[in-house]
């Protein structure tokens, strides 16, 4: 499954800004699905993909556990079933590239290079978390690794990512912005506004629709008149394509190609990855709306299990090697939990910090026990 939307883009006028020159690489078709053929990745790279995917799997299992133990507040959306997509996408980015995501972003934070302990501590609402415990599950933020936010509101991140790309365009840097969003988000107005702006002004941003085929409990077919979401790009004369989100190498090939093209030319693109959610929308969602068929299909396509089998079949890993990676991933996830558990909660005195950069007169900074006047 590697489909491409028709695309014919004229020279972009945009806001009259200088554009980088470059030529588009030829879109290489990749073999996808369960097979043993890898398209040139080194065994080390493949093993690293497996290591990262396994870490995300174990991390998310521990996150679910922490949520049911009431260690984690707020809401908690897991990347279970999307590990291949997450790792394939993140491996296409440099650390200096910017990433904006929706609220299902724990795996992205890990794969972008943030220590698991800091990610888990953010889930636990502790001061050692990426946002000092204020962001929680949905609002990871780490300037150093280029993660400019998980966003807890559907579509909120898309104009921001577009603005970051506009800023890069102004500064003349060679960074690229990746903006991850879900399938349901393609129906939000900000999606249309942002893709139009990005194409009009020729901005280096890759919009990635992670199509897990369910917007909370509503299927793509029930919510989108054009259910092949990558085709939305046509309306903006933008390149669009779809890959199998269960295939880490296919995702990485497509993402790398689009990212490097954007880096060279500043041109945006829309990439759709198709995969499954193994669990509910969030940890508390029992997914009663879901058919047994859909659940079975998701389990059969489990990207971690299928990739493990591919690696062993092709001789990249043996059973012991795979088990060692899994043991280490479990240890890393457990260590992240221990780190989070040992970290302090934010102090109530920090309630008033950071609302304004400039101290203001009516920022009362009063707590209930303080005198009123």
């Amino acid at each position, binding site marked *: 499954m590697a489909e491409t939307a028709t695309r014919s883009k004229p020279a972009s006028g945009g806001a009259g800004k200088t554009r980088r020159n470059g030529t588009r690489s030829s879109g290489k078709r990749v073999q996808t699905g369960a097979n043993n053929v890898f398209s040139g990745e080194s065994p080390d790279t493949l093993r690293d993909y497996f290591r990262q995917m396994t870490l995300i799997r174990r991390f998310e299992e521990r996150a679910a556990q922490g949520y049911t133990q009431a260690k984690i507040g707020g809401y908690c959306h897991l990347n279970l079933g999307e590990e291949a997509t997450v790792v394939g996408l993140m491996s296409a980015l440099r650390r200096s590239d910017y990433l904006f995501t929706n609220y299902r972003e724990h795996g992205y934070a890990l794969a972008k290079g943030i220590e698991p302990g800091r990610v888990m501590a953010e889930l636990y609402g502790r001061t050692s978390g990426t946002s000092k415990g204020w962001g929680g599950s949905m609002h990871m933020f780490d*300037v150093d690794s280029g993660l400019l936010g998980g966003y807890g509101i559907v579509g909120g991140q898309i104009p921001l990512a577009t*603005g970051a790309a506009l800023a890069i365009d102004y500064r003349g840097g060679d960074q690229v912005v990746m903006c991850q969003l879900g399938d349901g988000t393609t129906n939000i107005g900000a999606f249309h506004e942002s893709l139009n702006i990005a194409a009009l002004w020729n901005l280096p941003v890759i919009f990635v629709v992670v199509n897990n085929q369910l917007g909370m409990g509503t299927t793509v077919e029930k919510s989108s008149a054009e259910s092949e979401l990558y085709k939305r790009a046509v309306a903006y004369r933008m390149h669009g394509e779809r890959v199998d989100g269960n295939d880490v190498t296919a995702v990485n090939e497509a993402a790398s190609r689009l990212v490097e093209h954007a880096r060279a030319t500043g041109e945006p693109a829309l990439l759709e990855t198709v995969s499954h959610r193994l669990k509910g929308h969030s940890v508390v969602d029992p997914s009663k709306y879901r058919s047994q068929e859909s659940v079975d299909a998701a389990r059969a396509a489990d990207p971690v299990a299928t990739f493990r089998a591919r690696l062993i079949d092709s001789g990249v890993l043996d059973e012991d090697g795979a088990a060692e990676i899994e043991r280490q991933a479990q240890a890393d996830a457990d260590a992240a939990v221990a780190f989070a558990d040992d970290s302090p909660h934010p102090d109530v005195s920090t309630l008033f910090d950071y609302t304004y950069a400039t101290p203001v007169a009516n920022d009362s900074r009063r707590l209930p026990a303080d005198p009123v006047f």
Partner: protein
Amino acid sequence: MGQVTMAQALNTALRDSLRADPNVLVFGEDVGALGGVFRITEGLAAEFGEQRCFDSPLAEAGIVGTAVGMAMYGFRPVVEMQFDAFAYPAFEQITSHAAKLRNRTRGAVELPMVIRIPYGGGIGGVEHHSDSSEAYYTHTPGLTVVSPATPADAYSMLQEAITAADPVVFLEPKRRYWTKAEVELPAATEPMHRAVIRRAGTDVTLLAYGPMVATAMEAAEAARTEEGRDVEVVDLRSLSPLDEDTVCASVRKTGRAVIVHEAPVFGGYGAEVAATINRRCFHYLEAPVARVGGFDIPYPSPKLEEHHLPHTGRILDAIAELQWEEDR
């Protein structure tokens, strides 16, 4: 010295800010070639080029969100919402991202950006084009909300808003765009967060901002000539933060307060000012704090807006009801 309109003062403030800092960018709907519906950005694209002042698509969420993304990267975007109610499609970007990102990231990013909004009625502009939307923004911690009332303040406050570290909702009283004053630009008035006394008086304090300051000044003069009352007028200038000290010093002196705004009274910004006065000046008050505002209706048609908007007669009526000694 020369006669300068508020529109010219704003235009000059943008021009001087663009000149002073290469990180300042102006964009929005029709702000480039057209120079904006109210001509506030006239000539900027020609002078500074399309890199610095450019037209955006009709996409308010896209405009504000893009500005947030650029501000995260160190730019100082100044975006224009064409009319007050045109900003509502961008409401999420303003209230959920511009206002909260600094807090959400515990100071990892700052958002020095200005959202300029021509606001309020009085120009026969009908619904969507005449809203007083200030309370939506003042109710959102993280936003600074200001409104100038004079050409000198328009210049000085817009410049200060552009250099501020926090996102500023800059409410421009569109009915006063063509008000002229003797001003020497560049003008430096009081800091943006401070309220000022526009007219000193001893009997009652009129509190107003933006478009209603001129109305309050007219009413104060009428109160003197018609009723013999000595009215003090406070121009709040900044709605969030509110300069409580200046407000309370005036009310403690006069013992009576009337808040005037165009917005509907119910849930309006005046309620916050009244609560502040009650909290801090209770023992100084001779009468309950009064509010004069628009009626609790959607903005009416042009032929009826003169009744909806506060005017001298309604303000004098409110003053007359402040339990004066002779009435007791």
